[in-house]
């Protein structure tokens, strides 16, 4: 036995299925040869053998370790190859990486989760965990927004969530169409009369940088405390474990100290929204 474990090496993983979500988003169902346990908020690096890696946050239930789902938007080299994967193909997974949400500290609080666009994917695994533990929180709220009804991820699942009595959920789209019966407008509008004790509440935000910026400003405006606002920061990443230097944000490495940060921790840095 060689004493040096190799953190650069991925675990061999089989593609069980590739599910089309929207024209640009697919969900991979994966089976790693060695089970990977993760906490909501942690991420993995997905290897396309011989081509490269990219970081993704699982969209599946953290308590299930022998299978993992990744929901992936097609934007470049690795993600385009991801969209060509078929059942039976071999990929690699490295992780879990980063630090998850401090869910224990949400005990007896009102918890508001806000998602935008592709940010829904990582939030799904968080929501599964929060549902499993929903009795521990005073109240659970979900507010989601995206560009159009076509871009909305997990529509059928969201319809199920809407019926849950442990969740207060509202969705909005920037531009409505005939198939859409819900709110129209940006997600910050759904925060105006949120009906919770903002000063004591927890807010979790995940979405594109611009959306996170506006939502954070709004949350502060309606009374949330900086240390109770949790943001998912996105940075260029290579190693995923605090060595390659790519993801530095102020005095932190996003891959290791994050990707989830409470707003008070990163607020002092000048370039957090870019």
């Amino acid at each position: 036995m060689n004493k040096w474990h190799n953190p650069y090496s991925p675990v061999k993983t089989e593609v069980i299925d590739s599910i089309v979500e929207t024209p640009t988003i697919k969900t991979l169902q994966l089976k790693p040869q060695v089970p990977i346990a993760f906490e909501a908020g942690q991420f993995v690096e997905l290897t396309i053998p011989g081509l490269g890696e990219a970081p993704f946050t699982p969209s599946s239930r953290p308590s299930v370790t022998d299978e993992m789902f990744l929901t992936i938007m097609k934007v470049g080299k690795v993600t385009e190859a991801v969209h060509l994967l078929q059942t039976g193909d071999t990929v690699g997974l490295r992780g879990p990486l980063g630090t998850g949400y401090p869910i224990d500290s949400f005990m007896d609080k009102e918890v508001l989760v806000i998602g935008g666009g592709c940010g829904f994917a990582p939030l799904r695994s968080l929501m599964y965990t929060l549902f499993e533990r929903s009795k521990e929180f005073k109240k659970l709220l979900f507010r989601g927004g995206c560009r159009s009804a076509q871009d909305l991820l997990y529509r059928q699942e969201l319809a199920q969530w809407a019926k849950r009595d442990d969740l207060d959920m509202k969705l909005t789209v920037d531009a409505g169409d005939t198939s859409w019966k819900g709110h129209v407008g940006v997600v910050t509008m759904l925060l105006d009369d949120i009906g919770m004790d903002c000063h004591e509440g927890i807010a979790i935000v995940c979405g594109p940088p611009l959306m996170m910026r506006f939502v954070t400003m709004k949350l502060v405006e309606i009374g949330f405390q900086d240390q109770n606002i949790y943001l998912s920061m996105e940075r260029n990443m290579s190693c995923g474990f605090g060595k390659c230097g790519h993801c530095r944000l102020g005095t932190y490495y996003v891959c290791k100290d994050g990707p989830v940060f409470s707003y008070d921790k990163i607020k002092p840095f000048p370039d957090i929204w870019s």
Partner: protein
Amino acid sequence: MEFLSRKNFFTWLEGLKTAYQVFVPCKKGAYRFYKRYTSPADDIVIGEVRTTEPLKGFFTHAREKVAEEFNPEAPPDKNKPFAIVGVKACDLKGFLVQDQVFAHQSPPDPFYARAREDNLIISADCTLTLDTCFCLALDHNPYPEGHFDINLSEVEGGFVVETGSSKGRQILEKHKNLFQEASPAVLDEREARRKNIVAEVVSKIEENEVPYQEHYPGMVERNYKSKIWEEEAQRCVECGACNMICPTCHCFMLTDQKSGDQFARFRHWDSCMLRNFAQVAGGGNPRSRLWMRLRNRFEKKFDFFPKVADFYACTGCGRCVTACPAKIDIRRVLKRLVHNE
């Protein structure tokens, strides 16, 4: 402390070859480069001053295979470890940063940690200075005071030998017939030479008006919005030489390659001065302008590291001053930052 004559020194190097690949600094024109030791030669310079290339290349290679297929363990290294002779104090200071990143922070990098365990460091006092030397401004002397297995201080006819680790002591023990106890006279000579070289570095620092590190706290934060960055970055050609040559720069990038049905992952030294370093998919870039990347380089060295690890990530070796085709001089930038000008 021991004394090693120049003649015995070469016998000793010969003996080290059984367990190590021995590298020594050799002079070529005005510069010094590490070369594999084969036999005694006139161009071997143990004292003098730092090599052109940084020591870090013996511990993380510029391009190195770090994973193969899905093997969970680091592949064994079948080569003999390195014995690197004549390492200067400014390169040893680089270990503060490289160790913090690759060895002390979990998970340890198996390739670096193994090289640190296996390689042998035989350092040496500087006996001359370059115009670009400013180690004393970064709070360390031009002679090694730690981070070595064995240190050599050049004196008349040979070296004063000091051990700095149990590995070093074992090596000396193994070759003990070659060493003799250092006489008070050679120890005095070592002290006198050390005093001289310190005075030389001090005069270089004064000539070039380099500020000492006690003036650095707050300088980057204070000048975050200063025009210094745009002015200094104006001539930068984005070659990344400053990063490659720096003993503390540790950033890298992973790339994957395929040959036949095998795939492998490589680690390459990377440069934060390059445009795509922080760019994300879709083109978003927190440091889209060159001056932001120059500022980031100083922020990492003089703001990030002192905050997370209590030291500045600069050794005062002056390599980046010489390497930069745009003549962006770190000493000038430090001076401007300290004086807010």
